[in-house]
């Protein structure tokens, strides 16, 4: 089963995304960047949904860098999620190898569609 890792400090948002993804995926969750990276290294998810702005040691962009520089994880698909108006985050994220980018509040239907599309690439 396709594994998807959700990294977001907001547990309600994680829950919403989990509901959106339904039972078609195995969904893993992390509430900060550091935990997320650990889970990624251990579980090797097919795709990571990564919040850019997170408190703690690693924010989303740093986690992205870590994934893309890890030989074992660099092919993992990454979709970034950020707050509205942070246009620079988008540019930075895409430059650093993200596969997609969503601005909160995002349409759950579009997110699911984007996840499926990205996985199919």
């Amino acid at each position: 089963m396709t594994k998807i890792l959700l990294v977001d400090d907001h547990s309600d948002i994680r829950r919403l995304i989990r509901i959106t993804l339904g039972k078609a995926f195995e969904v893993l969750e992390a509430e900060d960047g550091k935990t997320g990276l650990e889970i990624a290294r251990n579980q090797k998810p097919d795709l990571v949904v990564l919040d850019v702005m997170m408190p703690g040691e690693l924010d989303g962009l740093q986690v992205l860098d870590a994934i893309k520089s890890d030989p074992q994880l660099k092919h993992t698909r990454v979709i970034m999620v950020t707050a509205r108006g942070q246009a620079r985050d988008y540019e930075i994220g895409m430059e650093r190898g993200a596969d997609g980018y969503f601005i909160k509040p995002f349409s759950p239907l579009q997110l699911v569609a984007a996840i499926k599309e990205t996985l199919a690439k």
Partner: protein
Amino acid sequence: MSHSDALDNSRPAGGQTVRLSGSTRDAALHDQLYRYAEDLQQLIERNGALEAHYQTLRESTALLLESREELDELLRSSRDIHLVTDAGGNILQSNPAGAALAPAHLLMGCKLQDRVLPAYLDNFAALQAGAIEGIGPSGPGHEMHLSREAGDASPLIVSAQALAVRKNGELCYLHWILRDVTSLRETEFETQISSMVFKHAGEGVAITDIEGEILAVNPAFSRITGYAAAEVIGRNLSLLSSGRHDAAFYAAFWRALRENGNWQGEIYNRRKNGEIYPEWLTVSAARDGDGGILSYIAVFTDLSRLLQEEKRLSFLAHHDPLTGLPNRLLFQDRLGQTLSQSRRSGVQFTLIFIDLDHFKPINDTFGHAGGDHVLQEVARRLAGTVRECDTVARIGGDEFVILAPGLVGDTDIGSLCGKMIDALRQPIQFDGHEVCIGGSFGCAEYPNHGDDEVLLLKCADAAMYRAKAAGGSTYVIYDAAPGSFHKLKENP
């Protein structure tokens, strides 16, 4: 609730920031939930649309099923024969109407073309090829005559269509639709024949309603009566009445029609030009299914031509075709009549025999044409000389006879014979030549010289020979005294 507040990292850390951060998180969740609600609404709408579509699909499937059953029912109850054959014409299926051709169990497995009468095999082949090549049904269909089960000699006449049934582009069946047009064609044929007879019959035909009002007439009607169809349609047939028949005649005519449904007989009618003519009329009633009279059909033959022909034949039988004078037959008839009249009335008459003098040389010199010309001229001169009541007849090659009622006595006989001798002595022109003849006249009187035909003819004949012996161009009146003849005028 500005996001920019939440994202302003330059703000100093502190309780306010934490508070603000908490409110930002709520706001983000709130906004995200709102997006969820929007998507949910979209999903609900899409679901509604899908459900509606599903319902439509279900209904149309049901309709499809229903129409499929209706189609089957239509085929079952169709009066047209529906046959399914393979491409080779082998019959695989038939609807009940196929029984007109043969019972179903006899049709199955047979070739359709084995049922097609030879003259129509080309039509069959054209239909079959047309369907297979996908040209499709061509026009209203071809006609074919099919043989029914043995024992039924009359063919089944069908208007046929063939359709190819394909699956995934591959031909699997031919669907034949055969419409029985047998009775239609037979009726058409009868109608055609009837109308041909109506149009081309030599007999005049008029169709009237039960009151005698004319509904239709044929060309022969117009030819005989002189009335065009448009002039008489809607008028009563009685417009042809000649007035020669009385009311009782017509009453009997209509009674026969009402009671027996037909009348036949000779009737005098009047043409448009007023001429009255006899016709042989047959009137028949046309009845409806319940036996009620719908109309009358009057068929008539113009008898006037026949009567004329009869007269002509009679004239030919009684006249000399060369001169137009009465011939021996008619002369004897007239002589017989004159005799019997004279016997009753006591009126005397004279019989004059005439034999032409010098006639034979004319025939020898100028041939028959010359002889005929002379005979015709003689006939004209004799007929132009005698009285109106006299009969001039030609009874042999150059022999003529005159029957002159009331002519008696040497003076009167001599006067008439003298005129005729003079008339015959005038030269006759023929083909640039001038020929001269004469006549020897022998006369016998009734009742002085005989009181029957044989005796009178014998006397006249004998007197004529005397005139001939005297050199011709003279007349001799028979003398009852043996060996003596009355001679009034000598050869000049």
